[in-house]
């Protein structure tokens, strides 16, 4: 991990690894989807049950990405490890996307299953809040221009958020049992073995997808910042020249 400390080594290393990651991701998706469509349908819910194979893995990744993000931030904070900060920064939008995907697939499923797009149920609510926490975190990176400063503040936000995830989960569950007996549960019937295999493969596929996206995103950012640094350098040289000539022109008409 620490061997990748500097961006150049990371670029080289990730450059080699990335193609394999992508191929693995695609392969797993292919296999997983094949399994999904050959697996027996859930006898209660019919073809709709297939949403599960997207829904459950994204739900897991939405949470895992938050934990990853907070840990990466910690690493950056304690060991002053900028690449870790960048990993955290770039994990956030991906995690947010998975949270959104969970919500969307859940809603698509909810309409036929429950007759409504949305209910204020414990699980749904906590995913929704997770999504909002992602948005807040992303906003921090956007609003603070100084990236070193942003990293420090982001760490505090991520840390507070991390403590808060279980708290919210618990309190939200309490809330429902207090006010409304659990009329809806998301856990379906016992899972058929072939469904389980398919599900596990999809979990793996999603995990690889996350890793690939993260690598691509970090690489893009490094490249963008390098490009900007070069641009600045050239700009500065140009300015220095125009500067001299314009100043000269201005000084020529100096009043006595």
């Amino acid at each position, binding site marked *: 991990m620490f061997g990748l400390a500097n961006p150049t080594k990371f670029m080289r290393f990730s450059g080699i690894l990335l193609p394999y990651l992508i191929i693995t991701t695609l392969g797993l998706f292919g296999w997983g989807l094949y399994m999904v469509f050959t697996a027996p349908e859930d006898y209660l819910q019919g073809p709709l049950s297939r949403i599960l194979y997207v829904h459950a893995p994204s739900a897991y990744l939405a949470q895992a990405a938050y934990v990853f993000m907070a840990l990466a931030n910690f690493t950056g904070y304690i060991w002053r490890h900028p690449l870790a900060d960048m990993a955290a920064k770039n994990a956030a939008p991906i995690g947010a996307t998975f949270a959104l995907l969970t919500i969307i697939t859940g809603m698509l499923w909810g309409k036929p299953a429950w007759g*409504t*797009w*949305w*209910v*204020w*149920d414990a699980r749904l*609510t906590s995913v*929704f*809040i997770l999504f*909002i926490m992602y*948005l807040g975190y992303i*906003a921090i990176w*956007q*609003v603070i221009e100084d990236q070193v400063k942003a990293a420090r503040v982001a760490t505090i936000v991520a840390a507070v958020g991390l403590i808060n995830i279980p708290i919210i989960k618990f309190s939200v569950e309490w*809330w*429902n049992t207090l*006010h*409304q007996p659990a009329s809806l549960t998301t856990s379906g019937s016992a899972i058929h073995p072939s469904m389980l295999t398919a599900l596990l493969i999809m979990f793996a596929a999603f995990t690889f997808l996350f890793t690939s996206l993260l690598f691509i995103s970090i690489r893009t950012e490094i490249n963008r910042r390098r490009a900007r640094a070069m641009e600045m350098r050239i700009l500065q040289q140009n300015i220095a020249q125009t500067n001299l000539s314009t100043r000269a022109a201005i000084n020529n008409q100096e009043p006595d």
Partner: protein
Amino acid sequence: MKPLLALFKRDISLFFRSGGGAGQAIGFYLVVVILFPFGVGPELNLLARISIGVLWVVLLLAILLSAERIFADDLEDGSLTLLLTAGPLPEMVILVKLLAHWVSIALPLLVITPLLGLLLNLPAGGLWPLVLCMFIGSLGLCALATIGASILVSIRRANQIISLLILPLYIPTLIFGVSATTDLTFQLDQPYTALLILTAISLISLIIAPFAAAQALKANA
């Protein structure tokens, strides 16, 4: 036109720049609307019943609470002096600032209303009426907010006292806004009466506001 266009663009970009993109106004709506179910409980029927009212109140609050800002920042850094004396007519300047405020505050709500409606279990068929009525009503509300802001421009942190001052002015819009929405949603007897009154109120506010506000700002100088 160029000066006014420049002002319009500046105000909007200041608004969006200062809190992380379009996220900020939308963030506010999301927050309030999410808190509601926690407050009143998650029963969908109850939520459906109060959803139109809650969304209107939230729109009103968002406009009310941000109204102070219409002139406060410009006063603080001395821009207001120049805005009122160095460019186009004060009335035009105020109208433009009003519209910019509307675009920054009310428009985002209109855009995410479908999502919020969903979360609050808005009655089916209530979406379009809600968006339409809010579109019309919010313009009037922004105009009224501008008058209030101009009156209070020299009071620091007027945020909350401003609420007291313009509150009575908001009430007609709120009443007719909600009833126009309800009438249209449930296709009651004369679904358009309330809408017409709402439109009239907004138009009048919009016409009066620039003059009233210009007058108030002058008195303040």
